């Protein structure tokens, strides 16, 4: 139609993937083509930062998620019920159609007793037990954030609580959304795809290609500085931060085009290197996060 000349279709599509899918879900729900499944959002060994990141989502936002997309039946940070009555929600949905979303790593030390998420009929429910109990029966399991997908910071050396990924304790497909935290769009877009078309296309490490197909480096707005060999010597410089330790070249995620917090900014634009938080191996294999060693040779 009458698009401006500088309109880029690829860019536009990328930004709107989640909201486009969500609108479709709403329409399908309205005409009764699909029904609202139950969603359990478990918090395990971690910082509970992924549920906060979910609350930071906009179009779709959290209200839309619980009003139009799913029946959210359990989340430790937000549910009104407490104690055994809260845990009862988990027991009651076991035989229903539900999706399990889990953030945080699974502490395995001493049969999981390093992370108890509640008490039921006097017995401690470990995170390990909850993940296995729900994970076996869920229609889909989504591991959200670095701790859930590969242990993340919770499993950083020397891994005091012997934390592992959600996948490590389940013999089934687990969709993985690495990131510290997970961007709300990565989760909501994946969920919308599941509701509409089933499981999204995944790469060989079970990440949705919709979000995790391309490295940050490939789409970095400072890529031309890299190509010309113009490097930042300190934070705050408006050049390529490769020599400050940027992990963009090894991190597959769409941050450069999506950006964060209602698409307002992202680490590179904030004049800091990417620390590889959305890549397997974070944090131990991504350190040091910042170094002023600008004497290293650039290896293309």
């Amino acid at each position, binding site marked *: 139609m009458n698009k401006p000349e500088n309109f880029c279709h690829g860019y536009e599509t990328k930004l709107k993937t989640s909201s486009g899918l969500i609108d479709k879900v709403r329409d399908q729900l309205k005409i009764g083509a699909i029904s609202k499944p139950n969603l359990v959002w478990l918090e395990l060994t971690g910082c509970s930062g992924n*549920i906060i*990141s979910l609350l930071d989502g906009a179009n779709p936002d959290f209200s839309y998620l619980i009003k139009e997309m799913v029946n959210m039946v359990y989340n430790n940070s937000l549910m009104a019920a*407490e104690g055994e009555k809260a845990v009862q929600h988990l027991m009651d949905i076991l035989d229903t159609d539900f999706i399990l979303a889990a953030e945080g790593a699974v502490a395995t030390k001493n049969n999981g007793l390093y992370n108890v998420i509640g008490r039921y009929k006097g017995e*401690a429910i470990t995170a390990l037990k909850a993940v296995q109990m729900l994970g076996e029966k869920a229609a889909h399991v989504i591991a959200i954030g670095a701790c859930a997908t590969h242990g993340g910071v919770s499993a950083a050396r020397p891994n005091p609580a012997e934390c592992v990924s959600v996948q490590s304790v389940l013999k089934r497909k687990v969709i993985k959304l690495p990131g510290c935290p997970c961007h709300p769009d990565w989760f909501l877009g994946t969920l919308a795809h599941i509701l509409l078309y089933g499981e999204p296309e995944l790469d060989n490490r079970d990440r949705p290609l919709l979000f995790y197909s391309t490295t940050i480096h490939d789409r970095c707005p400072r890529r031309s500085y890299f190509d010309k060999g113009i490097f930042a010597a300190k934070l705050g410089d408006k050049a390529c931060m490769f020599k400050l330790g940027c992990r963009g070249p090894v991190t597959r995620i769409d941050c450069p085009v999506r950006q964060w917090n209602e698409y307002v900014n992202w680490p590179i634009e904030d004049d*800091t290197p990417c620390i590889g938080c959305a890549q397997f191996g974070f944090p131990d294999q991504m350190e040091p996060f910042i170094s002023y060693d600008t004497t290293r040779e650039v290896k293309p």
Partner: protein
Amino acid sequence: MTKKIVINPVTRISGFMEIEAIIENNKIIDAKTEGLLFRGFEKMLNGRHPFDAVYFTQRICGICSTAHSMASTLALEDVMNIIPTQQGRYLRDIIHGCEFLQNHLRHFFQYTIPDYVRLPENYPLFETNHNDFRLPKEKNDRIVKHYFEALDLSRNAHQMLAVLGGKVPHNHGVFIGGITTQATTDKIIKIKSILSSIHEFIVEKMIPDVYTIAEYYVDYYHNGCGYGNLLSYGCFNDYKDLGTLYVNPLVYSDGNIRPFNADRITEEIEYSWYSDKKQSIKPLEAIPEENMDKPDAYSWVKAPRYEDIPFETGPLARQWLSGQYRNGISTMDRTIARVLEVKKISEVMTTLLDNLIPNTSVQQEYKVPDTAEGAGLIDTTRGALGHWLKIENSVISFYQIITPSSWNISTRSSNILKGTAEKALIGTAIQDTENPVELGRIIRSFDPCISCATHVYSHGKRIKTIKVVP
């Protein structure tokens, strides 16, 4: 008749905890707060590059990540003898202010409101345990509307943070010297615009809402009192040109306000799962080893003490010490003080924004010292937060973290003084022992952050087989 009540999980807090209370004649006669937290960050940090602490320690907490970036940055500046410029301080304190707004909005509407206001029960998330909802329908419905509106405003507080901090949770902006990037005029006006809409919401909706609740729950001015000892490390204070915009480092006990002295902080471990040569340890002295074979221990949380006694920290302490609010010390006063603080912080942020010089770069190349030690102490969303560290061979050799929730949700100490929240629970009258809504309300007034708690109790007995690998 004596009855034991156990609540686990205590929902609508960050992380997991258990409350155990003994009730006699409908009154709590003893209580334990079992914040059973062990992630071992202090161990993980050993051997890492000192600069990494700023981003690494944020992963302690998803709702107050910025707090840890502030404390770790201050600690690094202390060890490296770097004094940030005033512009650097303004910039990062604006980021810090955004986190206060986000946290308090979410804590009041998403974590506290469901205790007092009946949310639409056609959502499974809003089903409740109890029926103690006292607001008339019209007032109840108005606050329900604000519950959903607040979701937008707290999200916008984080958007505002990301304008200077890159992203959040776990921002990239706060760093040695101030922040990493420069505040351009478009960024400054964007923040001012968002802040103005948040300020309007606070004044027109949030503050009236907390007083509406207070009107119908007057009894909550008389429970959850604790010791009445208050402490702050100070925040938004001691600017060269602007002076103190909020609160200086102060303590309050026995009716007197005194200057705070960091040398008087100790942590006791007698009732926590740790062992050391001493029971009372100064922050830079030692990281005690885990030991779960102590007969009387019941928590991973230690017992921070100031001059050997427990102190409360957080919004009420700050409001009291800065003279902004001195109505009382109770569950309701704590809840009101947090709401009033949001207004105060938004005003402080406006002052800081008005004093920014656009495009100021505060970064330089930093060098890690070979050997050094230091501390970063600051009052943050939930209260007094301290990071202490030592550097040897240019890497971290020692890292100590004492969080605000350790102060508030501490265990008892060797002189048998209970933790502040435990003390606050004791004496409370329980209306319905089958649905003891009072406990959660009192505990949530402290806004505890027990990310990743680790429970090792089963049927009320300690499990002897548990060992922790160092």
